[in-house]
């Protein structure tokens, strides 16, 4: 019975921690205009912390045996490898890009928005 009670307490604490993390993410959102890069890193770090809590406690991985490594390591490696493999060609560009119509319009769109905000043509 004592073991059950301690599990219940752990689950409740994890739930509270996850709620606090979610509130922190929502608060960080208020500052994304000023410091988008910092907020991006902070909210993703919070997401990793939340995911860790869910996997360790709610999914019981903290108490499972060694099979969890055999099962999860390959998928995790492949999951991380996929975006890294795609990134050089699509995400980053080594050569100068050939401007597409959308890219040109995106540039104009941004310019006109800025001009409107300042009230200057």
């Amino acid at each position: 019975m004592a073991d059950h009670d301690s599990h219940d307490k752990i689950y409740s604490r994890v739930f509270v921690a996850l709620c606090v993390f979610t509130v922190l993410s929502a608060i960080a959102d208020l500052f994304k205009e000023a410091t988008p890069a910092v907020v991006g890193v902070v909210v993703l770090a919070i997401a990793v912390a939340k995911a860790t809590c869910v996997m360790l406690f709610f999914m019981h991985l903290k108490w499972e045996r060694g099979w969890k490594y055999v099962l999860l390591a390959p998928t995790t490696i492949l999951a991380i490898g996929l975006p890294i493999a795609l990134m050089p060609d699509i995400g980053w560009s080594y050569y100068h890009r050939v401007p597409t119509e959308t890219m040109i319009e995106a540039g104009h769109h941004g310019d006109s928005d800025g001009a409107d905000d300042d009230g200057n043509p």
Partner: protein
Amino acid sequence: MSHSSHPTAAPPLQMGLKLANSKLCLWLFLGTEIMFFSALIGTYIVVRLSAVDTEGNGVWPSNEITHIVTIAGAINTFVLIASSWLVVKAHEEIGRGQFREGLRDLLLVFACAVLFLGIKGYEYQGKWVRDILPGRISETQLQAVEKAVRQIGTVAALDDDALGGAPAKKILVAEHAQLENLLRQEKLTLEAMEARVVTLAHNKEFGGQIESHVMMATIYHDRTRDDSGHLVPLDKEHHAAYYIPYGNLFASSYFTITGFHAIHVIVGMIIFFFPLKKGLIGGGLEEADAQYVENAGLYWHFVDLVWIFLFPLIYIVQF
């Protein structure tokens, strides 16, 4: 000659891992699910980074333009977290024979899933009314004018009564034909074309139809131009931009990722339906059901896990 006298080359069979077969199968299934969603999310990150202007600056459409409501995402995050907590509670309670409490918590999990889909539906509806859908978003000024002319054609095809009588319809049909010609022959600037579209919304007979069917008129009618010659948005609440560069890439990514996640929520509801049915009208839960609830919970936690990453990536991060 007995078989036992020959040493066999095959390794001796042995018992499996010390966990239930159903749980092992579920974890193997989750392995494939991890691959599926990490492919979706990883590709989303990469295409999002690839959305740049000619200077190489990131120009992914902002939340205001695409009607992304951060508070709705935050509430949904809380709903899924609460449901995850309720599942582990239900599992513990059923395992120790507290079936009434376990059933109550499973019902609450089901309610959380319904609430999540309701909020998601509200968000989808916001996209639907603004035509923020894959393949339908104008990404350039020319596309926006083409779309407006096409939508005027739809209005011109309505009955006489809907357009305020035959004479009014005749005027609109003629105007549509003329706009099509002007667009094809490139005789007018796009700004001049916009002005003609917006003017149609002022017509006493069919102006209302134009306003409700032609996105450009809906957003811009009845407003003057600013100093730089751009039409000023009619309604800040609409938040919709005149045209959205990379809008279709956004819409495809958004609906694919959140759509597949929503399907997983629906599947979760089906999974939870069976113990609920048994508990409510099927003779009641028993301790043997704890294993089923644990497996169902593992699946549900994974659905929660995916949303934990989708919330910051779709609603908050701007890179």
